[in-house]
């Protein structure tokens, strides 16, 4: 296959997609049009026989049986709206991470519409939108878009914090949040005053929080929101307020270890001085002393 034929092939596909999208009409925004048309233009350069851009746009639609039904396009529209809503919710919740607690409901509605699309249920007009929307082309745009968000959701372990059916946050999570707030208010309370005071006074709250977190860690009931909140709190505690344990027992540790290190020296010295050195008894093997002496002996013998 020559590169030229490749190029024309891809060009043709782009052209098809463009035709499909443009057939849907109003979804296209003005900003998207120029790059698309340029692609089409470049493809048209390969296939000048197909006519100009204008004539392409005028080609209003494919025959009846290839078009998607109204029902499906309706579903697609709703999917788009909910998708936008979820992403709009996600982006502001990126830092500090609150993607689970803020956006679980919009994610729930998104999954709902997607499961509607992907079900084999036949909608009105005896059509299943699964095939036409999800897998009638190479790009599989709808599927890919949803899949990306699903991966994000799974990576953030949000399922651990949200009840089944995306109704609410789990009680564990809520409990953690209240404990966290308690600790943070305590921090705020003493922040302006002495740091050491903060360390002593907020210690119980902070410790409770840590214990709670440790328990959740063990049960695997954590999501990214909790992890991140805990990380931030720990950082506040250790780095900003410097409440970690100080290294203050250097002297006893050094004393004990130097004592330990001293023991082998004594051991080796004493075994060198007091232990009896092991001697080996040499043994002289019987050997023919030299050829001449052996010959002499043999001569004597015979």
């Amino acid at each position, binding site marked *: 296959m020559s590169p030229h034929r490749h190029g024309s092939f891809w060009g043709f596909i782009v052209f098809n997609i463009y035709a499909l999208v443009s057939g849907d009409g109003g979804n296209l925004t003005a900003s998207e049009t120029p790059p698309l048309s340029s692609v089409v233009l470049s493809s048209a350069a390969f296939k000048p026989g197909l006519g100009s851009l204008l004539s392409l746009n005028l080609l209003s639609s494919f025959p009846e049986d290839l078009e998607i039904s109204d029902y499906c396009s309706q579903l697609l529209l709703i999917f788009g709206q909910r998708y936008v809503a979820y992403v709009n919710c996600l982006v502001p919740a990126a830092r500090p991470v609150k993607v689970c607690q803020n956006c679980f409901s919009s994610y729930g509605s998104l999954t709902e519409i997607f499961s509607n699309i992907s079900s084999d249920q036949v909608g009105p007009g005896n059509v299943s939108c699964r095939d036409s929307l999800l897998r009638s082309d190479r790009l599989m745009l709808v599927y890919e878009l949803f899949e990306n968000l699903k991966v994000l959701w799974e990576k953030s372990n949000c399922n651990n914090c949200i009840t089944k059916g995306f109704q609410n946050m789990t009680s564990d999570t809520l409990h953690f949040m209240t404990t966290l707030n308690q600790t943070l208010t305590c921090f705020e309370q003493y922040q302006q005053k002495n740091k050491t005071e903060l360390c002593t006074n907020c210690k119980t709250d902070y410790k409770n929080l840590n214990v709670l977190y440790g328990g959740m860690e063990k049960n695997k009931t954590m999501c990214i929101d909790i992890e991140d909140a805990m990380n931030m709190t720990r950082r506040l505690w250790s780095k900003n307020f410097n409440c970690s344990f*100080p290294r203050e027992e250097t002297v*006893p540790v050094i004393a004990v270890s130097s004592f330990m290190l001293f023991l082998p020296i004594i051991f080796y010295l004493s075994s060198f001085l007091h232990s009896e050195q092991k*001697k080996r008894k040499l043994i002289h093997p019987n050997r023919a002393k030299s050829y001449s002496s052996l010959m002499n002996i043999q001569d004597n013998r015979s």
Partner: protein
Amino acid sequence: MANITKKVSWSSRADESGATGEGTPLLNGSEQPRHSRQLSEGRSIFQIGRLSTVDLEEEITSDEDSLRGRPKEIPHNEKLLSLKYESLDYDNIENQLFLEEERRMSHMGFRCLEISRWVVCGLIGFLTGLIACFIDIVVEELAGIKYQVVKENIEKFTEVGGLSISLILWAVFNSAFVMVGAIIVAYFEPIAAGSGIPQIKCYLNGVKIPRVVRLKTLLVKVGGVICSVVGGLAVGKEGPMIHSGAVVAAGVSQGRSTSLKRDFKIFEYFRRDTEKRDFVSAGAAAGVSAAFGAPVGGVLFSLEEGASFWNQMLTWRIFFASMISTFTLNFFLSIYHNKPGDLSNPGLINFGRFETESVAYNLYEIPLFIAMGAIGGLLGALFNVLNYWLTIFRIRYVHRPCLQVMEAMLVAAVTATVSFTMIYFSNDCQPLGPEHTEEYPLQLFCADGEYNSMATAFFNTPERSVRSLFHNQPGTYNPLTLGLFTLTYFFLACWTYGLAVSAGVFIPSLLIGAAWGRLFGILLASITTTGSTWAVPGKYALMGAAAQLGGIVRMTLSLTVIMVEATGNISYGLPIMLVLMTSKIVGDYFVEGLYDIHIKLQSVPFLHWEAPATSHWLTAREVMSSPVTCLNRIEKVGTIVDILSNTSTNHNGFPVVVQVAGNDEPAKLCGLILRSQLIVLLKHKVFVELARSRLTHRKLQLKDFRDAYPRFPPIQSIHVSQDERECMMDLMEFMNATPYTVPQETSLPRVFKLFRALGLRHLVVVDDENRVVGLVTRKDLARYHLGKHGLEELQLAQT
């Protein structure tokens, strides 16, 4: 001292032979074998006696002339050969009994033998895998408990103060475990100390190390290894697996246990040194394979260490044993890890998978790898030299068991102390990973949510530390941590190897190498501009590990394959090979490999692959022992008993000579008989007179010799009455009628080749008329070695 006793014994024997000699003219007659025997025997003994005394006197005078005041007792050093080591009888004894048995055996019988060889190899693999699995699980459980307790303690005391108590707790824990391990080794089975690889190397080389393949040794070895690894010493459990595999092989192939006094009446045919040694090589291979998940590496290990005599079928069987062993380990570990059927734990040490994408190497990295090989060779040589001096000191001064136990405990306590101090003063804090790759993260003074990075290296079993050095993300360790870790662990490992505990040196070497290799990679990434993209620390850690291990043990082919198999990445073959080659070349320039040093220090008569260079001028005449104690074909029982019970000359093989009828010609060689055979003959009282009187007497079979194998009773336990002493023994049927002989002018390398290739034990040196002139044994050959000043000769010593 030895000379005096020798003289005494000779004088007594000379009297005796003189007495018989007096009677000879009267009783001369060709039809009476007994009398002619007596004559010849008396004469030959007399001659030998005369020769020997002359010889001895000469030697004493020359000694006194040249080296006046030379001590007869010298401190232990490496230039000695111990008398306690004997050769294995690898050469088949083709006597008449053997031929008869072969004639009786049907075609089917040989088939069955072949099949049972396969069965034995399968069993060896299976049991070795099981032992490896047992060790692994017990170590993991016990170490888990230990680290958990110490960790909780440290956490508690970080908060309230008193960390020195945690330090003491850790040290006491370590010492307690190590004490148990050292006591069972030092008091019950000292041969189980160390990794066991030197001993197995010697065994495969053809040296019979006393008690090395006993059941008791295996038990002590397994227990000792568990104790020393759990005790936190800088040791691994991989080396001892090879020894364990060898013991399993030696035990299974015999179909009985002499220690337990159980005889299963199976595999009786394999009860001789030839077969046993073949199976032991299979066991060693199975051990390597279980330890590293490297079946091919195991086969090559046996080939490299033991291959003087090798055939394809044996190799194939050994490979089978290796495969079975790694599969067994795999299978049982998968059950232990609650993933039955998942066969992805191929060895005790698991290097983890090196994914090809992130750790691919480039052509321009090859010189870097070679440089790392050179560093590894240098560090390995340093390690070996330090360990050499330490071992000499230990042999000379720390030889009492109680001292050995104390030393091991001290090492354990110091290891804990040093580790703790390093962790305590380390400022290297790293955030906890998402998957918790750190088994026992210690926080200590780090911020919450972070852990002390020094603790992942020290506060862990060495295997895990190796794996985290290979696989942790770049940036997990900072260079200072790695540098300090390398330094301390280097000295700790060097100090630990050679203690009276069973433990291997593989893992500590890998760990040291991985630490400095990773350091190398980090520095590389920081000094080069593009380095951060290709200088993946894990890759350099692997190369460093290979270099360090190669620099210490100096294995070549097998180690390359083991490393490649353990990493599971065939594309690392070339760099690993280059690294190992360089490290061996560089290291050999300074000092030998660690195992060879220890073999030398144990005064083992070890035959290397080749005779020392520049030894062609030495002939068999200079090499051989002479004169030789010969026996007549029909010999008086009393004489045999006397010869065997002579403690000063603990000979094992006796040339059998026959007198040419009727004249004064010296006797000619007609065969060779072994001490063990003579003892069995004496025990069963196979005397000419008794055979005549009791016609129904059962004929001695090869089975009787096998039943006595391998622990032939000492001569003292065999009672021979005064009447029986006068009886005669006909050795015709039992001696090896066609022993290997060489003429006197044969050069040393030729003799050496015969020994090495045929696995000989005795080589008779004859003159042109087939008269026995001398006898070459392993010790005669092994005493020549190439030293710094040309060819040097080792001295024989009693150890």
